[in-house]
């Protein structure tokens, strides 16, 4: 005889259709001015930043850059709902979150311009720097959450990962320990359907990625990642639960990577063009603008004004970025250890000489 | 309490049944004494005691099954024998090893001054082939490194004149001390003759000199001082400890005659004789050659008139006494033949002035003229 030991279900939350029209009756909290206009403005800023970063990269003024195109709603809503004392453990596609949490745009350019001082920005507080190795940030988030818990701080930790990253052991180990220890972590999966060239369908046979949470015994759910209103509800609740000591949540936000993987990638080699075209019809910025228009919260004049304002903001950040003096060669040696060991100090001395020699051009054959 | 747990009596046997105990609680047992017979899936096995001790408790009775790793016997006293590993065996400390460790943090003091000559392996091998001792060479290369040229030149010299004799012992010390003095001191020498014609026959010349130096130091204390050339500081001495240069076959010794200002002549003579004898017998302790405040070199017992003897820091003066000779001197308006002692005073001009040295010389002459 058989019985059912466990049965799970994964909820999907969405309020707006692709064009920004309500899918049903909107909840009371969704009506009114706040916070939608602010969200929209940040999403526009994020997209402008993204566009500018790509053009700086294409003109040799920035290194390889991972675009956020298509994930603006996820980043903006998550960061806006976080409190200053919450901790962000980002991956490498969270520029908008970092911007909203106080990182000057010029510092974001500095980071992607190949300078570690971007991650030294004091406004980042105790947020971690970008995690480049896939999925490692999920475990760091658990470590940060453990630290908060040990200290009795009732704050939340939010970390983000792509759909590809959920195939890694680090993610599985992280949600497992977060469940076992009931850590205050919110795991956001930005399921943008592509891990470089590998589509979501080849990543995992499970119909949702959120259901991996079921195996770890924690709450998992899906949300439309292009729907700022749905994100606001789902992420807000997860952060509240975390702060209240009610444990971790896995949120799979369904989105679409409208960009290449990075500026070093060419998605036309593997991504069907009609799929991309269809995805543009669902993208988050236009969807929210349509909703704001329909609610009378936004109009063409405000749109023009805001587009101009953000453009100026970005341009001024670029100017600031370009005026930053290069770091001294010493910085490559001074932060490895609390105190520079003698062997490394000797190498630092040689590096200073090497730098001078290279600046003067060529080896000194004396 | 210490437990003996049922070991794996074969490969991977999980349990054994107790057939018969051969010991009782309270028994004293020896190592390897049979404790119990057990039956495993393979055989009846006799299990010996792993240690000497008193049995505190037996686990189980005949017919009981014990699993591998479960306690079989408890020994009285001792530490918990929990080996603390899920895998493998750790070797255990013998209780006798319980000293405190001593070790040096970082390099040994002797490592801070490298002893050997610096050279490349190729040159080392060349020196070995040519029979040249590297330790005798002064390297002409960067940082004093011995070069192939240095080795070849030494080999040529050896072939022409034989191998050089390296300095040893006192002679080596002298070479070092003199070189160091030469590098550091700023010496000025002042010469004068003392008319000693009135000295009776048989006067103890050395003792007169010792007395006169004591008198001069008391009259002009500026030369009975130590000088620190690093700190540029003077340390005046009220006590006069006189270094007396003694020539031997092995080399130069300078034993110290203590407190010459406050001792009787006989006492000083006895002391000097004893020091000289000790030097000759090579039994003088190093302490007897340290701490001079001023030095006398009485080379007049051999040959020589004036000299510029070398001051050994931290002293600032040395007096040289030459061969006493008869010579014409002006006495009033007449020329007479008198016995005269030539004197040289070398002083360190960093520590004393020419005037101080001249007044010292004057006091010395006056004392000798008395």
């Amino acid at each position: 005889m058989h019985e059912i030991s466990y049965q799970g279900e994964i909820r999907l939350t969405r309020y707006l259709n692709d064009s920004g029209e309500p899918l049903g009756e909107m909840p009371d909290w969704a009506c009114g001015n706040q916070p939608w206009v602010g969200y929209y403005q940040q999403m526009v800023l994020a997209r402008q930043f993204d566009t500018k970063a790509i053009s700086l990269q294409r003109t040799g003024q920035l290194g390889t850059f991972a675009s956020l195109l298509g994930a603006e709603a996820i980043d903006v809503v998550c960061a806006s709902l976080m409190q200053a004392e919450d901790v962000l453990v980002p991956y490498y596609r969270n520029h908008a979150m970092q911007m909203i949490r106080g990182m000057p745009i010029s510092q974001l350019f500095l980071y992607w311009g190949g300078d570690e001082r971007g991650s030294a920005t004091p406004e980042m507080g105790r947020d971690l720097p970008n995690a480049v190795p896939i999925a490692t940030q999920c475990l760091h988030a658990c470590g940060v959450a453990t630290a908060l818990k040990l200290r009795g701080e009732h704050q939340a930790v939010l970390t983000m990962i792509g759909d590809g990253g959920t195939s890694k052991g680090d993610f599985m180990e992280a949600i497992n320990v977060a469940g076992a220890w009931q850590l205050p972590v919110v795991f956001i999966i930005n399921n943008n359907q592509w891990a470089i060239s590998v589509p979501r369908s080849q990543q995992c046979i499970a119909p949702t990625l959120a259901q991996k949470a079921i195996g770890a015994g924690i709450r998992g759910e899906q949300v439309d990642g292009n729907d700022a209103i749905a994100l606001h509800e789902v992420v807000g609740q997860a952060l509240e639960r975390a702060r209240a000591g009610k444990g971790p949540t896995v949120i799979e936000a369904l989105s679409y990577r409208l960009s290449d993987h990075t500026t070093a990638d060419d998605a036309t080699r593997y991504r069907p063009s009609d799929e991309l075209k269809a995805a543009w019809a669902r993208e988050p910025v236009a969807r929210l603008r349509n909703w704001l228009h329909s609610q009378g919260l936004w109009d063409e004049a405000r749109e023009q004004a805001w587009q101009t304002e953000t453009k100026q903001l970005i341009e001024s950040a670029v100017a600031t970025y370009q005026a930053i003096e290069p770091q001294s060669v010493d910085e490559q040696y001074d932060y490895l250890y609390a105190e520079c060991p003698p062997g490394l100090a000797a190498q630092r001395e040689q590096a200073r000489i090497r730098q001078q020699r290279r600046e003067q051009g060529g080896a000194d054959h004396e | 309490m210490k437990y003996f747990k049922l070991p794996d009596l074969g490969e991977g046997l999980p349990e054994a049944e107790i057939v018969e105990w051969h010991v009782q609680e309270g028994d004293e047992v020896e190592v390897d004494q049979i404790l119990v017979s057990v039956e495993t899936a393979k055989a009846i096995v006799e299990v010996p005691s792993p240690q000497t001790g008193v049995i505190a408790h037996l686990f189980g009775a005949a017919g009981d099954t014990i699993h591998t790793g479960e306690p079989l016997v408890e020994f009285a006293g001792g530490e918990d024998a929990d080996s603390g590993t899920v895998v493998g065996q750790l070797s255990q400390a013998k209780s006798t090893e319980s000293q405190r460790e001593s070790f040096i943090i970082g390099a040994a003091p002797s490592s801070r001054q490298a002893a050997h000559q610096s050279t490349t392996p190729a040159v080392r091998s060349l020196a070995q082939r040519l029979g040249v001792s590297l330790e005798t060479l002064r390297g002409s290369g960067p940082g004093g490194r011995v070069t192939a040229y240095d080795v070849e030149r030494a080999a040529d010299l050896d072939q022409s004149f034989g191998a050089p004799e390296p300095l040893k012992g006192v002679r080596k010390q002298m070479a070092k001390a003199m070189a160091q003095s030469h590098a550091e001191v700023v010496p000025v020498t002042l010469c004068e003759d003392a008319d000693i014609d009135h000295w009776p026959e048989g006067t103890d010349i050395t003792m007169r000199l010792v007395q006169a130096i004591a008198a001069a130091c008391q009259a002009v204390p500026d030369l009975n001082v130590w000088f620190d050339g690093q700190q540029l500081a003077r340390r005046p001495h009220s006590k006069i400890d006189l270094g007396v240069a003694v020539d031997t076959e092995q080399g130069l010794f300078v034993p110290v005659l203590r407190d010459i200002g406050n001792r009787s002549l006989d006492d000083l003579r006895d002391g000097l004789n004893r020091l000289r004898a000790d030097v000759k017998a090579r039994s003088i302790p190093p302490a007897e050659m340290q701490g001079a405040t001023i030095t006398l070199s009485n080379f007049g017992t051999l040959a020589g008139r004036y000299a510029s003897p070398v001051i050994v820091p931290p002293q600032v003066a040395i007096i040289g006494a030459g061969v006493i000779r008869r010579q014409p001197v002006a006495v009033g308006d007449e020329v007479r033949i008198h016995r005269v002692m030539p004197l040289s005073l070398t002083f360190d001009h960093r520590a004393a002035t020419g005037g101080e040295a001249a007044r010292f010389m004057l006091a010395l002459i006056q004392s000798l003229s008395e």
Partner: protein
Amino acid sequence: MSDNAITLLEAVNLALARALEEDPNVVLLGEDIGTNGGVFRATDGLKARFGERRVIDTPLAETMIAGLSVGMATQGIRPVAEIQFMGFIFPTMEHLVAHAARMRHRTRGRLSCPMVLRAPFGGGIHAPEHHSESTETLLAHIPGLRVVIPSSPARAYGLLLAAIRCDDPVVFLEPKRIYRASKTLIEDNGEALPLDTCFTLREGSDITLISWGAMISETLAAADQLADEGISCEVIDVATLNPIDHATLVASVSKTGRCVIIHEAPHHGGMGAEIAATLSEQALTYLQAPPRRVTGDDTVMPYYRYEQLYLPDVDDILIAVRETMEYSG
């Protein structure tokens, strides 16, 4: 606490207890370290004494232990994590290399990673496969990661305290073959030993023997025998493999002109090669003979029946020293 003769393992326990007591930010975590006190008993009694919030049994996942420690350390906690055996340290490598070792560097000092990863290592205890390797060189190659190996109870106590107080990530490798092999008197006075220096265990003038970890026992035994033959050996315990104190090694070998480097790890690309290379760069003109290595061979660490054949022994050291002493250019 007063003087007490204890083993290296007990010294580790003593230092952990001291660290837990003196700094509320120190937290131990690992598999089986709590109620069970660790499979070797290194954390014995600590959970009972300091509670389950300070001495934490983790799920069985080494990557998680390392990643969690990184996250904790960035927030000012000082995690001291145990990896049960060095053979299981490999899943932690990504977090050590890509995060712990460079957290301060890549944030230019905004965050740091003061964590310790402890792991028993080395052969000679008849352990199963994968439990006996010495892969310290893999770790010592990583800039920003300190690698420390004690070779006696006193150094285990002093170096572990230093590692925990250090603001850099430290991998602390414990030579399990000598965990309980000897006892020495240790005063539990909280005094740390420096992490950036070698230790001269025996002063000598003819040849320098350089080693670390469990092989120090064989090295000292060889030095004793060689003294009877009239060969005066200086014995140096390197102790911290990264950043290594080359100055002490160069000074000693410049004095003696000869050296033998002894390690359990494989020959190829081992720390012995790094030390020999540095001696040839900095002490070449003092060398009377080539630096010689006595190491494990470039094979897989054998399963226990042949591990004694693999491990260098006193005779191997004696032969290498005699040949080095007799060497003539």
